[in-house]
């Protein structure tokens, strides 16, 4: 027992909802080759390690079972660097506007 996660920890689990053979008909070929998977977050019901099959209680009180993938899942999206050329858009626009009364 590595003790990756303790009962009550905020975690994310994954689940395969539909295996590739069980998916809807008429899917594009690339999608049909993959399983439909699900991620959901909640409070862990028992101590566990990453990769274990665990049960969580979600914020609305549902219990869901799946594979433990993350403890304290974060949001990593940001703004990032300015795309090349983007910073000069405004000066060009102002230049065009300048000779408008």
């Amino acid at each position: 027992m590595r003790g990756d996660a303790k009962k009550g920890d905020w975690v994310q689990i994954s689940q395969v909802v539909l295996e590739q053979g069980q998916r809807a008909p008429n899917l594009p070929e690339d999608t049909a080759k993959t399983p439909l998977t699900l991620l959901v977050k909640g409070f862990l019901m028992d101590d566990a390690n990453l990769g274990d099959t665990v049960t969580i209680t979600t914020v609305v009180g549902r219990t869901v079972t799946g594979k433990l993938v993350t403890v304290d899942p974060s949001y990593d999206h940001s703004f990032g660097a300015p795309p090349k050329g983007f910073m000069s858009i405004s000066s060009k626009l102002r230049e065009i506007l300048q000779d408008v009364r």
Partner: protein
Amino acid sequence: MSADLSYTSVMSRSGQILKKAVGINYDDFRISSLAFDYEKMMGEVGYTIGEIQRIQLETGVGQTPLLELRNITKLARKLAPKGKGARIFVKDEAVNPSGSFKDRRAALSVYVAKRKGYPGVIAATSGNYGAAVASQAAMRGLKCIVVQEVFDSRGIGQPEIIEKSRKCEAYGAEVIQLSVGPELFYVFLCLLEETGFLSASLYTPFAIAGIETLGFEVGTQVMNQEGVPPSAVVIAHAGGGNVTGTTRGLLKAGCPDSKIIAASVDLTGLHMASDHDFNRKSFTTAHTGFAVPFSTWPDRSDVPLNAARSLRYMDRFVTVKQGTVFYMTEMLAQLEGLERGPAGNTSLAAAFVIAQEMDRDEILVVQETEYTGAGKHPWAQLNFAAENGIDIRYGDPKEEVAGKSIIIPEHPRQIQVSEIPLENLQRSYLRSAVAKLPGKTVTEADLDYLVYETKSSRRFVGKILVESGISIGSK
């Protein structure tokens, strides 16, 4: 209690699951296998527009400012022929509680869920609507689940959708994040059955009636401030609810002559259910991947009969390119001091071009903005596109190919719209209708219905039906 949860079994129960979860018996409105009484269905809402405004104000929704975009108007006039260049106004819907007009769409459903004693609400959406339902549910003390299509088979999700997941969670919703595929609907049905929550679908009469207040406010604000109705209103177009609700509201405000212009981002060539294409688009809403199929057959949604029926209301449908919308987003921030989310600026990009066709004394309204932030921002989205192999450059937007390139204009004169002829959509709609017919005959009532559905004429519909081998009989 131990219902069969296999895909086919759940899908075959969808009618009964939805009947309970939407709280509407759609069979009450059917006239024939083809036609239904649309206005009777909208009457199911049971509230006047004044009552809806009052319900929305209880949770701080609506009564948003109408702002004149003086610098963007000036710029458009500089590029326009002499005497042309309508005044451009924008309805700043980003100031709604969760940051978009979708609060209007969510408000009534959540109100009704509370009144009817549902323990919670569920919405299937990867758009701003999820945050709107979550926010409204928090205010009314209901539980909320949002089901989103978030990531591809590599586990990678667009920053815009990740931000939308975050926002739903910020309001206390459980967010179900799924990989690519239309079986999101299957998961949605399983959750409705398990929880007994109300389906706060985007496409119920409640959702559409909630948007009517937006059109109503646009009409009354322009008339009060300027003494005339708007000459035209540009509306971002995806599933059709925005076009439908806004236009119905404008009509209720007494603006029958305002031209209704739908605008979508051009994503031609990308398959909406493709795992590979999923992260090669920078817009998850207001794009042709929804707008075209939903215009030409609305009843493909998560309700038996869709209250969003855009072909009934559109006067014109234009598309703009992804790079153009990012450029307009920067223009709005820099020239007007309004930093707003990209997708909401789809209609602004179209308006910039259309204003140049109109006379200077005319008023053109862009009817929404949306919030912006990490992920949901041109920098984040362009960086993500580049990481997914999209060629990002500056030049003529006409050369942009969705899924391969994003071309940002070098000069505002390069901003263009492309027309989607309504007749093409009307024909496509009618072909879909014909394909659903059990026989080779339609009734007079069916014919009238098809005329309303396509906002066309008996002559036009009759011609297409005859071409398709359908005759008009009395039964």
